[in-house]
Protein backbone atom coordinates (compact mmCIF):
# COMPACT_ATOMS: atom_id res chain seq x y z
CA UNK A 1 0.00 0.00 0.00
CA UNK A 2 1.40 3.44 -0.88
CA UNK A 3 0.29 6.90 -0.04
CA UNK A 4 -0.50 8.34 -3.42
CA UNK A 5 -2.15 11.71 -3.11
CA UNK A 6 -3.80 14.09 -0.71
CA UNK A 7 -5.82 17.20 -1.33
CA UNK A 8 -7.65 19.78 0.71
CA UNK A 9 -10.83 21.59 -0.25
CA UNK A 10 -11.76 24.02 2.52
CA UNK A 11 -12.65 21.71 5.42
CA UNK A 12 -12.96 18.57 3.27
CA UNK A 13 -9.78 16.56 2.85
CA UNK A 14 -9.18 13.58 0.62
CA UNK A 15 -6.31 11.14 0.80
CA UNK A 16 -5.82 8.61 -1.96
CA UNK A 17 -3.96 5.36 -1.46
CA UNK A 18 -3.34 2.35 -3.66
CA UNK A 19 -4.30 -1.05 -2.30
CA UNK A 20 -2.06 -4.08 -2.76
CA UNK A 21 -4.12 -5.29 -5.71
CA UNK A 22 -3.78 -1.95 -7.49
CA UNK A 23 -7.21 -0.54 -6.75
CA UNK A 24 -7.47 3.02 -5.42
CA UNK A 25 -9.13 4.01 -2.17
CA UNK A 26 -9.90 7.58 -1.09
CA UNK A 27 -10.41 8.64 2.52
CA UNK A 28 -12.58 11.72 3.05
CA UNK A 29 -12.27 13.55 6.33
CA UNK A 30 -13.95 16.74 7.52
CA UNK A 31 -13.10 19.22 10.24
CA UNK A 32 -10.13 18.31 12.41
CA UNK A 33 -10.23 14.56 11.76
CA UNK A 34 -7.27 13.27 9.75
CA UNK A 35 -5.57 16.67 9.78
CA UNK A 36 -2.22 15.02 9.10
CA UNK A 37 -3.23 14.60 5.46
CA UNK A 38 -3.64 18.35 4.91
CA UNK A 39 -0.41 19.01 3.10
CA UNK A 40 -0.21 18.44 -0.62
CA UNK A 41 2.57 15.98 -1.39
CA UNK A 42 4.04 16.47 -4.85
CA UNK A 43 6.35 13.45 -4.56
CA UNK A 44 3.43 11.28 -3.64
CA UNK A 45 1.51 12.67 -6.58
CA UNK A 46 4.23 11.48 -8.94
CA UNK A 47 3.93 8.05 -7.40
CA UNK A 48 0.30 8.08 -8.33
CA UNK A 49 1.17 8.84 -11.95
CA UNK A 50 3.46 5.82 -12.03
CA UNK A 51 0.70 3.76 -10.52
CA UNK A 52 -1.66 4.83 -13.27
CA UNK A 53 -3.97 6.62 -10.89
CA UNK A 54 -3.63 10.16 -12.14
CA UNK A 55 -6.90 11.46 -13.54
CA UNK A 56 -6.49 12.46 -17.20
CA UNK A 57 -7.07 16.07 -18.22
CA UNK A 58 -10.62 17.26 -18.63
CA UNK A 59 -12.22 15.99 -21.79
CA UNK A 60 -14.27 19.15 -21.88
CA UNK A 61 -11.31 21.18 -23.07
CA UNK A 62 -12.26 22.36 -26.51
CA UNK A 63 -15.10 19.98 -27.23
CA UNK A 64 -18.10 21.65 -25.62
Amino acid at each position, binding site marked *: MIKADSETEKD*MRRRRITLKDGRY*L*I*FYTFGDKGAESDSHNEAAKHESVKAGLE*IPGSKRDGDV
Partner: protein
Amino acid sequence: MSELRWNPLLGEWTATATHRQARTFLPPADFCPLCPTKPGGFPTEIPEPTYDIVTFENQFPSLLPDPPEPAVAGTELYPVRPSKGVCEVLVYSPKHSTTLADEPVEQIEKLVRVWADRFRELSELDEVDYVFIFENKGEAIGVTLHHPHGQIYGYPFIPPRIQRELDQSRAHMAQTGRCLLCDIGGEELKDGRRLVATNESFIAYIPFFARWPYEVHISAVRHWQALTDMSRTEQRALAAILKMVIAAFDKLFDISFPYMMVLHQRPSDGRRYDYYHFHLEFYPPLRTANKLKYLAGSETGAGLFINDTLAEEKAQELRRHIQSVSWS
Protein backbone atom coordinates in the same frame (compact mmCIF):
# COMPACT_ATOMS: atom_id res chain seq x y z
CA MET B 1 -15.76 -12.57 -17.85
CA SER B 2 -17.02 -9.06 -18.40
CA GLU B 3 -18.28 -7.40 -21.55
CA LEU B 4 -21.05 -5.30 -23.07
CA ARG B 5 -23.42 -7.07 -25.44
CA TRP B 6 -25.71 -5.07 -27.72
CA ASN B 7 -29.44 -5.80 -27.63
CA PRO B 8 -30.71 -4.87 -31.13
CA LEU B 9 -34.29 -5.53 -30.06
CA LEU B 10 -34.28 -2.74 -27.47
CA GLY B 11 -31.33 -0.75 -28.77
CA GLU B 12 -29.39 -0.92 -25.52
CA TRP B 13 -26.40 -2.61 -23.90
CA THR B 14 -26.39 -5.49 -21.43
CA ALA B 15 -23.34 -5.89 -19.17
CA THR B 16 -22.11 -9.36 -18.32
CA ALA B 17 -19.98 -9.74 -15.18
CA THR B 18 -19.69 -13.42 -14.36
CA HIS B 19 -16.99 -12.86 -11.72
CA ARG B 20 -19.60 -11.10 -9.55
CA GLN B 21 -21.11 -14.51 -8.73
CA ALA B 22 -18.20 -14.96 -6.30
CA ARG B 23 -18.73 -11.74 -4.34
CA THR B 24 -19.16 -11.72 -0.56
CA PHE B 25 -22.74 -12.55 0.39
CA LEU B 26 -24.24 -11.37 3.69
CA PRO B 27 -21.20 -12.06 5.92
CA PRO B 28 -21.57 -11.94 9.74
CA ALA B 29 -20.89 -8.49 11.23
CA ASP B 30 -17.48 -9.62 12.56
CA PHE B 31 -16.35 -10.30 9.00
CA CYS B 32 -17.79 -7.26 7.28
CA PRO B 33 -15.42 -6.22 4.46
CA LEU B 34 -16.66 -2.62 4.67
CA CYS B 35 -15.67 -2.09 8.32
CA PRO B 36 -12.21 -0.60 8.96
CA THR B 37 -9.56 -3.26 9.63
CA LYS B 38 -9.16 -3.83 13.37
CA PRO B 39 -5.69 -4.35 14.90
CA GLY B 40 -4.99 -8.07 14.70
CA GLY B 41 -8.24 -8.64 12.85
CA PHE B 42 -8.82 -9.93 9.37
CA PRO B 43 -7.95 -7.46 6.61
CA THR B 44 -11.02 -5.69 5.27
CA GLU B 45 -11.30 -3.42 2.25
CA ILE B 46 -10.51 -0.39 4.44
CA PRO B 47 -7.04 -0.52 6.03
CA GLU B 48 -7.33 2.55 8.30
CA PRO B 49 -10.00 3.69 10.75
CA THR B 50 -9.73 7.50 10.56
CA TYR B 51 -12.23 8.80 8.05
CA ASP B 52 -15.74 10.12 7.75
CA ILE B 53 -16.51 8.59 4.36
CA VAL B 54 -14.42 6.38 2.11
CA THR B 55 -14.68 5.29 -1.50
CA PHE B 56 -12.77 2.61 -3.36
CA GLU B 57 -12.83 0.64 -6.57
CA ASN B 58 -15.22 -2.27 -6.33
CA GLN B 59 -13.45 -5.62 -6.00
CA PHE B 60 -16.22 -7.19 -8.09
CA PRO B 61 -16.89 -4.52 -10.71
CA SER B 62 -19.31 -4.65 -13.61
CA LEU B 63 -17.17 -2.06 -15.42
CA LEU B 64 -13.37 -1.74 -15.27
CA PRO B 65 -10.81 0.88 -16.33
CA ASP B 66 -8.83 -1.88 -18.11
CA PRO B 67 -11.41 -4.48 -19.02
CA PRO B 68 -10.54 -7.85 -20.55
CA GLU B 69 -11.26 -8.55 -24.18
CA PRO B 70 -14.81 -9.85 -24.63
CA ALA B 71 -15.22 -13.61 -24.28
CA VAL B 72 -17.08 -13.81 -27.58
CA ALA B 73 -16.58 -12.12 -30.92
CA GLY B 74 -19.27 -9.64 -31.93
CA THR B 75 -21.19 -9.74 -35.20
CA GLU B 76 -22.91 -7.06 -37.26
CA LEU B 77 -26.19 -7.88 -35.53
CA TYR B 78 -24.65 -8.45 -32.11
CA PRO B 79 -21.85 -5.93 -31.44
CA VAL B 80 -19.74 -6.61 -28.35
CA ARG B 81 -17.41 -4.19 -26.60
CA PRO B 82 -15.17 -4.30 -23.53
CA SER B 83 -16.93 -3.24 -20.34
CA LYS B 84 -14.81 -0.14 -19.82
CA GLY B 85 -15.81 2.15 -16.99
CA VAL B 86 -15.58 2.60 -13.25
CA CYS B 87 -17.34 0.99 -10.28
CA GLU B 88 -16.80 2.48 -6.84
CA VAL B 89 -18.15 1.50 -3.44
CA LEU B 90 -18.93 4.50 -1.23
CA VAL B 91 -18.94 3.65 2.48
CA TYR B 92 -21.03 6.14 4.44
CA SER B 93 -19.52 5.59 7.89
CA PRO B 94 -16.95 3.52 9.81
CA LYS B 95 -19.91 2.32 11.93
CA HIS B 96 -21.34 -1.02 10.86
CA SER B 97 -24.72 -0.89 12.55
CA THR B 98 -26.13 2.34 11.23
CA THR B 99 -28.05 3.53 8.21
CA LEU B 100 -28.15 6.84 6.41
CA ALA B 101 -31.48 7.51 8.12
CA ASP B 102 -29.87 6.99 11.53
CA GLU B 103 -26.95 9.29 10.82
CA PRO B 104 -27.04 12.97 11.89
CA VAL B 105 -27.79 15.44 9.13
CA GLU B 106 -24.17 16.65 9.35
CA GLN B 107 -22.98 13.23 8.14
CA ILE B 108 -25.47 13.32 5.27
CA GLU B 109 -24.13 16.75 4.31
CA LYS B 110 -20.64 15.24 4.18
CA LEU B 111 -21.97 12.54 1.88
CA VAL B 112 -23.52 15.15 -0.42
CA ARG B 113 -20.14 16.88 -0.65
CA VAL B 114 -18.39 13.59 -1.41
CA TRP B 115 -20.98 12.84 -4.10
CA ALA B 116 -20.12 16.17 -5.72
CA ASP B 117 -16.41 15.44 -5.50
CA ARG B 118 -16.81 11.99 -7.04
CA PHE B 119 -18.92 13.45 -9.86
CA ARG B 120 -16.29 16.11 -10.49
CA GLU B 121 -13.46 13.62 -10.71
CA LEU B 122 -15.14 10.74 -12.52
CA SER B 123 -16.91 12.97 -15.05
CA GLU B 124 -13.50 14.06 -16.33
CA LEU B 125 -12.48 10.51 -17.27
CA ASP B 126 -12.51 9.95 -21.01
CA GLU B 127 -14.12 6.54 -20.63
CA VAL B 128 -17.02 7.84 -18.53
CA ASP B 129 -20.00 9.44 -20.25
CA TYR B 130 -22.37 9.14 -17.31
CA VAL B 131 -21.72 9.13 -13.55
CA PHE B 132 -24.48 7.21 -11.82
CA ILE B 133 -24.66 7.44 -8.02
CA PHE B 134 -27.05 5.12 -6.22
CA GLU B 135 -27.79 3.14 -3.08
CA ASN B 136 -29.45 -0.24 -2.77
CA LYS B 137 -30.64 -0.58 0.81
CA GLY B 138 -32.01 -3.72 2.45
CA GLU B 139 -32.13 -7.41 1.66
CA ALA B 140 -35.44 -6.86 -0.11
CA ILE B 141 -33.43 -5.03 -2.77
CA GLY B 142 -30.79 -7.75 -2.86
CA VAL B 143 -27.94 -6.09 -0.98
CA THR B 144 -25.12 -8.46 -0.09
CA LEU B 145 -23.48 -6.29 2.62
CA HIS B 146 -25.32 -4.57 5.47
CA HIS B 147 -22.68 -1.95 6.25
CA PRO B 148 -24.17 1.38 5.09
CA HIS B 149 -22.88 2.11 1.62
CA GLY B 150 -23.79 3.27 -1.83
CA GLN B 151 -22.23 2.76 -5.21
CA ILE B 152 -21.04 4.80 -8.16
CA TYR B 153 -20.96 3.51 -11.72
CA GLY B 154 -19.10 5.40 -14.42
CA TYR B 155 -20.81 4.22 -17.59
CA PRO B 156 -19.12 4.49 -21.00
CA PHE B 157 -22.46 5.59 -22.48
CA ILE B 158 -25.64 7.33 -21.39
CA PRO B 159 -27.86 4.62 -19.86
CA PRO B 160 -31.28 4.13 -21.50
CA ARG B 161 -33.45 5.39 -18.64
CA ILE B 162 -31.44 8.62 -18.45
CA GLN B 163 -31.47 8.97 -22.24
CA ARG B 164 -35.26 8.75 -22.20
CA GLU B 165 -35.49 11.49 -19.56
CA LEU B 166 -33.08 13.62 -21.58
CA ASP B 167 -35.13 13.12 -24.75
CA GLN B 168 -38.36 14.03 -22.95
CA SER B 169 -36.75 17.06 -21.32
CA ARG B 170 -35.28 18.29 -24.60
CA ALA B 171 -38.61 17.85 -26.42
CA HIS B 172 -40.49 19.70 -23.65
CA MET B 173 -37.99 22.55 -23.79
CA ALA B 174 -38.34 22.75 -27.58
CA GLN B 175 -42.13 22.71 -27.36
CA THR B 176 -42.68 25.08 -24.43
CA GLY B 177 -39.41 26.88 -23.82
CA ARG B 178 -39.48 25.57 -20.27
CA CYS B 179 -37.68 22.89 -18.24
CA LEU B 180 -39.74 19.71 -17.80
CA LEU B 181 -38.61 19.08 -14.21
CA CYS B 182 -39.26 22.73 -13.31
CA ASP B 183 -42.79 22.32 -14.68
CA ILE B 184 -43.29 19.03 -12.79
CA GLY B 185 -42.08 20.66 -9.58
CA GLY B 186 -44.38 23.63 -10.18
CA GLU B 187 -47.35 21.34 -10.79
CA GLU B 188 -46.64 19.37 -7.60
CA LEU B 189 -46.29 22.57 -5.55
CA LYS B 190 -49.50 23.98 -7.02
CA ASP B 191 -51.47 20.78 -6.35
CA GLY B 192 -49.90 20.04 -2.98
CA ARG B 193 -51.53 16.66 -2.40
CA ARG B 194 -48.43 14.69 -3.35
CA LEU B 195 -45.89 16.85 -1.55
CA VAL B 196 -43.89 15.09 1.15
CA ALA B 197 -41.48 17.82 2.31
CA THR B 198 -40.04 21.10 1.11
CA ASN B 199 -37.27 23.49 2.04
CA GLU B 200 -35.74 26.56 0.44
CA SER B 201 -33.83 24.63 -2.22
CA PHE B 202 -35.61 21.29 -2.75
CA ILE B 203 -39.05 19.73 -2.92
CA ALA B 204 -39.85 16.10 -2.16
CA TYR B 205 -42.99 14.54 -3.60
CA ILE B 206 -44.51 11.30 -4.82
CA PRO B 207 -44.99 12.15 -8.47
CA PHE B 208 -48.39 12.05 -10.16
CA PHE B 209 -47.08 9.19 -12.30
CA ALA B 210 -45.45 7.15 -9.48
CA ARG B 211 -44.77 3.53 -10.36
CA TRP B 212 -43.98 2.42 -6.79
CA PRO B 213 -46.26 3.08 -3.78
CA TYR B 214 -43.69 5.15 -1.90
CA GLU B 215 -41.70 6.45 -4.87
CA VAL B 216 -40.37 9.82 -3.70
CA HIS B 217 -38.60 12.26 -5.97
CA ILE B 218 -36.48 15.10 -4.62
CA SER B 219 -36.03 17.89 -7.12
CA ALA B 220 -33.94 21.06 -6.99
CA VAL B 221 -35.96 24.28 -6.85
CA ARG B 222 -33.35 26.21 -8.83
CA HIS B 223 -32.66 24.97 -12.34
CA TRP B 224 -29.27 23.22 -12.44
CA GLN B 225 -27.90 20.01 -13.87
CA ALA B 226 -25.21 18.37 -11.76
CA LEU B 227 -23.97 17.98 -8.19
CA THR B 228 -21.11 20.34 -8.90
CA ASP B 229 -23.58 23.16 -9.67
CA MET B 230 -24.79 23.23 -6.05
CA SER B 231 -23.99 26.03 -3.63
CA ARG B 232 -22.99 25.17 -0.07
CA THR B 233 -26.44 26.32 1.05
CA GLU B 234 -28.01 23.90 -1.42
CA GLN B 235 -25.75 21.07 -0.25
CA ARG B 236 -27.02 21.63 3.29
CA ALA B 237 -30.60 21.84 2.08
CA LEU B 238 -30.26 18.58 0.16
CA ALA B 239 -28.85 16.87 3.25
CA ALA B 240 -31.74 18.20 5.32
CA ILE B 241 -34.50 17.05 2.99
CA LEU B 242 -32.83 13.66 2.51
CA LYS B 243 -32.76 13.21 6.28
CA MET B 244 -36.44 14.18 6.51
CA VAL B 245 -37.53 11.73 3.81
CA ILE B 246 -35.49 8.66 4.77
CA ALA B 247 -36.27 9.12 8.48
CA ALA B 248 -39.97 9.26 7.54
CA PHE B 249 -39.54 6.06 5.51
CA ASP B 250 -38.25 4.25 8.62
CA LYS B 251 -41.18 5.49 10.70
CA LEU B 252 -43.80 4.26 8.21
CA PHE B 253 -43.72 0.66 9.43
CA ASP B 254 -41.17 0.99 12.26
CA ILE B 255 -38.58 -0.90 10.23
CA SER B 256 -35.37 -0.01 8.45
CA PHE B 257 -37.11 0.78 5.17
CA PRO B 258 -35.55 -0.76 2.04
CA TYR B 259 -35.14 1.38 -1.03
CA MET B 260 -33.22 2.08 -4.17
CA MET B 261 -32.03 5.69 -4.27
CA VAL B 262 -30.68 7.07 -7.56
CA LEU B 263 -29.31 10.46 -8.54
CA HIS B 264 -30.23 11.75 -11.98
CA GLN B 265 -27.95 14.44 -13.34
CA ARG B 266 -26.49 15.52 -16.64
CA PRO B 267 -24.19 13.22 -18.59
CA SER B 268 -20.45 13.87 -18.63
CA ASP B 269 -19.83 13.30 -22.33
CA GLY B 270 -18.78 16.89 -22.98
CA ARG B 271 -22.09 18.02 -24.50
CA ARG B 272 -24.43 20.64 -23.03
CA TYR B 273 -27.59 19.59 -21.25
CA ASP B 274 -28.97 22.93 -20.13
CA TYR B 275 -32.51 21.63 -20.56
CA TYR B 276 -32.03 18.89 -17.94
CA HIS B 277 -32.61 19.22 -14.20
CA PHE B 278 -31.00 17.49 -11.20
CA HIS B 279 -33.19 15.25 -9.07
CA LEU B 280 -33.11 12.10 -6.93
CA GLU B 281 -35.54 9.24 -7.11
CA PHE B 282 -36.38 6.65 -4.45
CA TYR B 283 -37.95 3.33 -5.42
CA PRO B 284 -38.90 1.51 -2.20
CA PRO B 285 -40.07 -2.05 -2.96
CA LEU B 286 -42.59 -2.32 -0.10
CA ARG B 287 -46.28 -1.69 -0.65
CA THR B 288 -47.23 -2.61 2.94
CA ALA B 289 -45.16 -3.48 6.02
CA ASN B 290 -44.73 -7.07 4.82
CA LYS B 291 -45.65 -7.10 1.14
CA LEU B 292 -43.32 -6.41 -1.72
CA LYS B 293 -44.18 -4.79 -5.02
CA TYR B 294 -42.82 -7.29 -7.55
CA LEU B 295 -41.76 -6.43 -11.05
CA ALA B 296 -43.87 -9.11 -12.70
CA GLY B 297 -45.16 -9.75 -16.20
CA SER B 298 -46.59 -6.35 -17.06
CA GLU B 299 -43.75 -4.39 -15.50
CA THR B 300 -40.92 -6.56 -16.79
CA GLY B 301 -42.37 -7.90 -20.00
CA ALA B 302 -44.32 -4.90 -21.24
CA GLY B 303 -42.79 -1.99 -19.36
CA LEU B 304 -46.15 -0.95 -17.90
CA PHE B 305 -46.00 -0.49 -14.14
CA ILE B 306 -49.20 -1.17 -12.24
CA ASN B 307 -49.28 0.74 -8.97
CA ASP B 308 -51.75 -0.65 -6.43
CA THR B 309 -51.90 2.66 -4.58
CA LEU B 310 -52.66 6.35 -5.09
CA ALA B 311 -49.76 8.76 -4.86
CA GLU B 312 -51.99 11.29 -3.07
CA GLU B 313 -52.76 8.84 -0.24
CA LYS B 314 -49.20 7.57 0.13
CA ALA B 315 -47.83 11.12 0.26
CA GLN B 316 -50.28 11.93 3.03
CA GLU B 317 -49.04 8.86 4.96
CA LEU B 318 -45.44 9.94 4.58
CA ARG B 319 -46.15 13.57 5.53
CA ARG B 320 -47.39 12.40 8.94
CA HIS B 321 -43.89 11.15 9.70
CA ILE B 322 -41.92 14.13 8.42
CA GLN B 323 -40.03 15.91 11.18
CA SER B 324 -37.87 19.00 10.99
CA VAL B 325 -34.13 18.46 11.04
CA SER B 326 -31.90 19.53 13.92
CA TRP B 327 -28.35 20.69 13.18
CA SER B 328 -25.93 20.35 16.07
